[in-house]
């Protein structure tokens, strides 16, 4: 069953990830926690060491050679990321932050806090990650705006009829997760963008779980904003991206204040720098930005369509295998229509216990609420176990997962 030809040359890919060789008590690691963070391939690690060993320097305004080299690499990293997501405006549409969460907060503070007010509505979905849910909820509170949530269907999809009713001329922002990190649902973001735009609302796409594993084209979606994280796409920790349409980023107020983001400062007032630097105050995430560009190269070399197919295949396989026993509930849409993860519960075994037991077999999954507590309330469970896949995972590893779940079933029988 696990012999089917893989879409990717996984054996070769795995050579780039020495961490996958780790053994616990003689058993090789099976890493299925990729929705939390992915591992970092050698070319990206080498980009990092190369930076520190040969051209580390502060950027933008140093005239000396090291600073020139670092500046050019850092600025070009923005162009590379722009290309990766189809942002034709180039670097001016790409702001480097520290993670998806900060990218959301940037817009919530720079735009939301200034523009929202009583009577305005922010439309979210029941499957939003805390990164957008908590952020908009709190900014709405402070401005008097209101949050509405598009409900999910029994299959774990967005109820698009409800969405059409919830999005009205009062809607100022529609913030939607592209691929749910709990349900695996792939949301019709471009359709939602159309609806939002019909009502002159902006649409913010949370791409944390889509940009890493499928081709994403911001202009095809017509997203006004898109956010994602480096550490979930073979890049380093400490870097996130905010894409914004150029004219919006130009109009918006800055967010963090300080050096690099200004053009002119007096004791009385300040003028802002050009895009995207206006939003990157202080010494930026230089090495992390350059390494993220290398991660884009790495993923493009494999091919985003192929990564998407590979993940879909593993998710479908895991979905089917886990459901061989009736005591396993898998959340979200059916096998043939989901992103590369499966969240599930084994009847009578708390997800935390399950994860501990799986860990005894060196199978690494996540257990908890996956930063979607309100969604878990809707699902009627406090926690779930989640296996999530990436370019280096195999069907044989899914088999290891299923065997370990069998062990747990027996232990708790």
């Amino acid at each position, binding site marked *: 069953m696990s012999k089917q030809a893989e879409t990717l040359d996984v054996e070769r890919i795995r050579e780039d990830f020495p961490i996958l060789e780790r053994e616990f008590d003689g058993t090789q690691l099976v890493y299925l926690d990729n929705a939390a963070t992915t591992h970092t391939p050698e070319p990206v690690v080498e980009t990092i060491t190369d930076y520190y060993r040969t051209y580390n320097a502060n950027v933008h305004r140093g005239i000396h050679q090291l600073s020139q080299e670092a500046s050019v690499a850092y600025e070009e990293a923005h162009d590379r990321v722009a290309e990766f997501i189809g942002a034709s405006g180039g670097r001016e549409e790409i702001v480097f932050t520290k993670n998806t969460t900060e990218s959301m907060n940037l817009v919530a503070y720079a735009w939301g806090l200034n523009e929202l007010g009583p009577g305005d509505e922010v439309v979210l979905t029941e499957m939003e990650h805390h990164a957008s849910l908590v952020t908009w909820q709190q900014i709405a509170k402070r401005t008097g705006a209101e949050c509405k949530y598009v409900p999910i269907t029994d299959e774990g999809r967005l109820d698009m009829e409800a969405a059409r009713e919830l999005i009205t001329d009062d809607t100022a922002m529609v913030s939607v997760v592209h691929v749910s990190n709990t349900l695996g649902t792939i949301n019709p973001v471009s359709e939602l963008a159309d609806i939002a735009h019909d009502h002159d609302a902006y649409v913010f796409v949370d791409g944390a779980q889509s940009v890493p594993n499928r081709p994403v084209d911001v202009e095809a979606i017509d997203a006004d904003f898109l956010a994602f994280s480096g550490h979930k796409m073979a890049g380093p920790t400490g870097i996130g991206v905010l894409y914004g349409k150029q004219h919006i980023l130009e109009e918006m107020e800055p967010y963090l204040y300080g050096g690099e983001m200004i053009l002119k400062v007096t004791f009385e007032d300040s003028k802002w720098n050009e895009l995207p630097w206006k939003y990157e105050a202080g010494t930026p995430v230089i090495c992390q930005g350059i390494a993220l560009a290398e991660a884009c190269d790495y993923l493009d070399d494999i091919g985003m369509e192929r990564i998407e197919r590979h993940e879909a295949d593993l998710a479908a396989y895991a979905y089917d295998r886990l459901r061989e026993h009736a005591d396993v509930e898998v959340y979200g849409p059916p096998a043939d229509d989901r992103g590369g993860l499966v969240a599930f519960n084994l009847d009578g*075994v*708390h*997800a*935390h*216990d399950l994860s*501990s*037991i799986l860990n*005894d077999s060196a199978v690494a999954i996540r257990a*908890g*609420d996956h930063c979607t*507590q309100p969604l*878990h309330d809707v699902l009627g*469970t*406090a*926690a779930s176990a989640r296996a999530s896949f990436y370019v280096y995972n195999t069907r044989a590893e899914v088999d290891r997962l299923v065997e370990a779940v069998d062990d747990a079933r027996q*232990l*708790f029988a």
Partner: protein
Amino acid sequence: MYRQQILDHYKNPRNYGELEDPDIEHVGENPMCGDTIKMFVELADDGDTIERVRFVGDGCAISQASASMLSGELHGKSLETVEAMDRDDVADMLGVELSPMRIKCAVLAEKVAQDAIAIHKGEADPVETTTE
């Protein structure tokens, strides 16, 4: 981590249930995990010795087994003794090495008992739920 004894306490929790008219009653939760424990305590006439303990709860095996074992341990102890318990006592009781990520599950019951006593003594705000 899952010794037979822990699994046994999880599957067959001791002292499970409610008390009608307890001297002390308190609920605690671990919102990250969804673990909840509600403790009921009856004191002896000296007002200091624990005579009966019951609990109800929901959550992972570690949190529930820990509550079950603790409910037995508490019997006959003075409030002060319970207040002086710490993480190590819980680990000893469970007889396993707890990974850093599971400690909160393991100590929830102990924390609920200690907070319950503090509230009973008027040393803590009675409305607050214990959270770990």
